[in-house]
C-alpha cells in the first residue's frame, strides 16, 4: 500500500480486500486523500458501513472508529451515533445494494431529516459480494445472476432521489475522475447537514464478467467512455450514459 496513506490505514492491514480492478479500492484511496487534504483528525471521525463489498472500504481498514453494521442499516446506526455525540464527524460508506436497495428507506429519511452525515455510495450497479445479483441500480437490460435475460426494471437515479429527499449536497462522479471525486467528497464532508456522493465504481468480477467486459482495464475504459460531465451533457444522452457532476449544493 502506498506510503502516503499509511497513517490512515490500521497498521495491521497490508493489502486491500478487493478483487483486481475493483473500483472500491480506488474509492478508498480517494476518500482517504480527501480527508488528508482536509487535514482532519481520524480520532474525531466515525466511519459506518453496512454489508457488502463497499462495507469493507472503511472496516477494518480505516484507522479510526469504524462501525460495520447490518445490511442496509448503516445510516440508521450512524444517525444514533451522530445525534448522541455531535462532535463525531460521521461518514457512511456503502454500496448501492446496501444503501439504496435494502437501505433505501433509511437513506431518504436521513436526507429528509438533514442529519449531519456524509454518505458515499459506491455504486457498482450490482450485488458484488453475494455473487452478482441485480440491484436497484442495475441498468435496464444488463445481465446479472438474477436477470439472466437482462434487467427488465429501470434503475434509480440516485442523485435525483436524494435531491428529492432534500439532501444539502448531491454529486456523482466515477472513480475514474479521482480529482473531481476527491474534491466532491471534501465538499460533502465540510458542508453541514446531509450530504451524498455517488461514486460510480466498476465491478469487473460480477458486473463486467456478466456483461461481456472481461478485463478490469476494459471496465475502466468503458466507464470512462460512458461518463458525461453534466456541463457537457446535451440532455439527449441515452440511458447507458452516466451524467457526472454536482447536482445540489454546488
Amino acid at each position, binding site marked *: *500500500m*502506498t*506510503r*502516503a*496513506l499509511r497513517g490512515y490505514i490500521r497498521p495491521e492491514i*497490508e*493489502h*486491500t480486500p*478487493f*478483487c*483486481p*480492478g*475493483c*473500483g*472500491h*479500492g*480506488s474509492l*478508498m*484511496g*480517494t476518500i482517504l*486523500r480527501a480527508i488528508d487534504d482536509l487535514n482532519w483528525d481520524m480520532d474525531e471521525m466515525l466511519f459506518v458501513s453496512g454489508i457488502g463489498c463497499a462495507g469493507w472500504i472503511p472496516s477494518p481498514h480505516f484507522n479510526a472508529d469504524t462501525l460495520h453494521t447490518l445490511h442496509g442499516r448503516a445510516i440508521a446506526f450512524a444517525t444514533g451515533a451522530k445525534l448522541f455525540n455531535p462532535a463525531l464527524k460521521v461518514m457512511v460508506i456503502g454500496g448501492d445494494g446496501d444503501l439504496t436497495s435494502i437501505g433505501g428507506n433509511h437513506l431518504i429519511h436521513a436526507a429528509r431529516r438533514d442529519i449531519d452525515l456524509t454518505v458515499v455510495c459506491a455504486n457498482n450497479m450490482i450485488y458484488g459480494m453475494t455473487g452478482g445479483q441485480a440491484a436497484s441500480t442495475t441498468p435496464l437490460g444488463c445481465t446479472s445472476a438474477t436477470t439472466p435475460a437482462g434487467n427488465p426494471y429501470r434503475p434509480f437515479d440516485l442523485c435525483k432521489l436524494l435531491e428529492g429527499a432534500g439532501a444539502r449536497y448531491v454529486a456523482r462522479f466515477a*472513480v*475514474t*475522475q*479521482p*480529482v*473531481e471525486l*476527491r474534491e466532491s467528497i471534501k465538499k460533502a464532508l465540510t458542508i453541514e447537514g446531509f450530504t451524498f456522493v455517488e461514486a460510480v465504481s466498476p465491478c*469487473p468480477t460480477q458486473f463486467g464478467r456478466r456483461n461481456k*467486459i472481461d*478485463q*478490469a*482495464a*476494459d471496465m*475502466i*475504459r*468503458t466507464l*470512462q*467512455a*460512458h*461518463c458525461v*460531465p453534466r456541463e457537457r451533457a446535451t440532455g439527449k444522452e441515452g440511458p*447507458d450514459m452516466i451524467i457526472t457532476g454536482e447536482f445540489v449544493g454546488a
Partner: protein
Amino acid sequence: MKGYPVCDIVAAERKLNAADFERDDWAALEAAAVAEARRCLGSYFCDACDLCLLLCPDLCITRDEEGIIVIDYDYCKGCGVCSAICPKGAIEMITEKRE
C-alpha cells in the same frame, strides 16, 4: 461499448478532430494542435500526471523522494487499471512467468 481512453484531466486539453478543421477558429485550432503534438511526442514517457497513483485500486502506486512514480509489486494484483488509464501509454502489462 469501447471508448477512447481519455481521462478528464487530459480531456481538458482539446483533442484534435475533423470538425475543428472546418471552423475558422484559428486560435482554438492552434491550441489543439499544440496539445496534440504534446500528446503525440510524449507518448510512452511518464510525465507523472498521478492518474495511475490516484486510481490504483490497491493503493500500491506512489511517488518516491525524487517524484518518480514507483509501483510496489508486492501488493499489485495485476488488474491493469493503471495501464488502461495512463494517457501516455507509459505502463505496459507483462504476463508474469511462473518460476
